[in-house]
C-alpha cells in the first residue's frame, strides 16, 4: 500500500481516495432516495382521508431537533479538523459530542412519534400520514444507523489509533453525517415549516 504523505491521512492511499469518491456517489444516490420521498410527500399533502393533517406538528421539538443536528454537524466538522491536526483526543471528544447530539435528536423524534400516535395519527391512518412517517422515519433510521457507525469508529480509532484506514472511515462518516443534516434542513423547511405556515 503506497502512502502519500503530502495528503491528509484520509486521502493518503489510492484505496482511500477511491472510497471517498465512491461515498460521494453513494450520497448522490441518497439524494435520489430522499427526492422520491419528498415528491411523494408533496403529492400527498392534503390527502389526509379521515385522519389529521399538519395540525399535529409542534414547533418546540422540531426546533430542538434542528439545533441538535446543526450543532452536531458543526462538531463533526471540528472532529475532522482535529483529526487532520493529529489530535486524537480532541477528535474523539468531538465525535462523542456528535453522537450525543444524535441521541438527543433520536430521543426527541421518538417522543414526537409517540405524541403523533397518541393523537390518532399512525402510519396506517391515511396516505398523508404514511408518507409523513416514512419520510421522517427514513431520516431517523439513517441517524440511528449513523449512531452505531460512529460508535464503531470511536472504538476503532481508540483501538488502532489514527491510521490511513481509520482516518478514512472517520472522514467518510463525517460526510454521511453532514448529509443527514442537509436532509434534515429540507425536512425542517418543507415538511414542518411549510406545514405550520
Amino acid at each position: 500500500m503506497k502512502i502519500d504523505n503530502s495528503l491528509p491521512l484520509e486521502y493518503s492511499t489510492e484505496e482511500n481516495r477511491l472510497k471517498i469518491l465512491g461515498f460521494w456517489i453513494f450520497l448522490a444516490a441518497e439524494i435520489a432516495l430522499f427526492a422520491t420521498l419528498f415528491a411523494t410527500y408533496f403529492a400527498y399533502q392534503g390527502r389526509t382521508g379521515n385522519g389529521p393533517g399538519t395540525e399535529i406538528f409542534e414547533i418546540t421539538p422540531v426546533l430542538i431537533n434542528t439545533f441538535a443536528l446543526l450543532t452536531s454537524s458543526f462538531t463533526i466538522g471540528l472532529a475532522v479538523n482535529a483529526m487532520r491536526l493529529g489530535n486524537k483526543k480532541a477528535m474523539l471528544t468531538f465525535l462523542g459530542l456528535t453522537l450525543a447530539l444524535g441521541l438527543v435528536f433520536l430521543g426527541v423524534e421518538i417522543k414526537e412519534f409517540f405524541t403523533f400516535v397518541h393523537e390518532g395519527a399512525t402510519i396506517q391512518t391515511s396516505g398523508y400520514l404514511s408518507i409523513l412517517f416514512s419520510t421522517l422515519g427514513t431520516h431517523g433510521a439513517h441517524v440511528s444507523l449513523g449512531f452505531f457507525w460512529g460508535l464503531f469508529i470511536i472504538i476503532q480509532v481508540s483501538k488502532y489509533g489514527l491510521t490511513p484506514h481509520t482516518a478514512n472511515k472517520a472522514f467518510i462518516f463525517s460526510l454521511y453525517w453532514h448529509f443527514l443534516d442537509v436532509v434534515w434542513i429540507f425536512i425542517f423547511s418543507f415538511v414542518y415549516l411549510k406545514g405550520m405556515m
Partner: protein
Amino acid sequence: MKMKWTLLALIFAVATALTGCENPLAVFDPKGPQAATLSDTIILTIWIMLAICVVVTVAFIYMLVKYRASKQSKDYEPPHIEGSAVVETIWTAIPIIIVAFLSVVTVVSLKDVEATPKGYENKEPLVIYASSSNWKWHFSYPEENIETVNYVYVPTDRPLEFKLYSYGPISSFWIPQLGGQKYAMADMVTTLHLLADEPGEMWGRNSNFSGKGSAHQLFDVQAVSPAEFEEWVEEAKAKSEPLTEEKFDELLKTEHVGRQTFTGTHLEFSPAPEGSHNMDDMENKEDMEDMEDMNHDMDHK
C-alpha cells in the same frame, strides 16, 4: 440479406392492408370524428415512418453490399476518419425537423380528442357514467335515469361525455371505433369525449389488465339515431326493474353477468368519486383549514 427484403415486402404488404381493403382494422374503421382524427394521425405517421425505414434500410444495404470484405482487395486498409461536422449536423437536423413536425401534429390532435368534437360545441353533451367493477361495465345515464350493464346505447351526432371510474383495479375504457381509451380509477373520475356520427354496432372493452376476468370484460356499443335513442330510453324505463342498493351490491359481487337494464342509477346511493387530484392543490389556498375540510368531504364516499 434475404431477411431484409422479406421484411420490406412485409412492411409494404401491411401498409396496403392497413389503408384499405374490405375488412379494415378496428383502429382504421372510425365511426366518429375523434376516432377519425386518430386514424388519420396514425396513417400519416405510418407513412413518415415507412419513408424513414426505407431510406435507412437502403443506405444500410448499400454499405453492406459495397464494402464487404469479399469484394475488397486483400491489401485494402480502411481509412481513419474522425467524422465530419457538416455531415453530422445534417443528420442531426433532419430528425429534429421531423420530430418538430410530429410534435405539432401531436399537440393539435391531442387538443382535438380531449375536447368536444369540432362542430358539435353548441350541442348539449350526453353524460354517461361508465364504471368498472370486477369484471363488468356499469353505464349510468343520470339525466335519463336509467342504468345498463355491459352494453351502452348512444345517440348519433351528439357529443358524449363518458365519466369513468372504477370499483377496484385500474381499468381502461376503450371503444376503438369511437376514439382512444382512458383509465377508470377508484379515487377519481376521468372524462372521455366521444361522438358517433353513424349508426351501427361496435365493441368496447377494458383493455387494461385488471385481474383474472379482464379478458372477458367486453361490452357492446349501439349507436342509434336520436329518435331511436329516445325510444330505447322510454322502453328501458317502462320494462326494467329499479336498481336498489342491495341489488347493486349483489351485482358488484358477481363476476360476470350478461346485459342488464335498470331504472334509476347507482349514483344516487353510491356516487362517483368526483373531483380529481387537483383538489389537493395548495397553490392558491391561503387557508389550510378550508382545504382540510374539503378533503374530508371528498374522501367520505
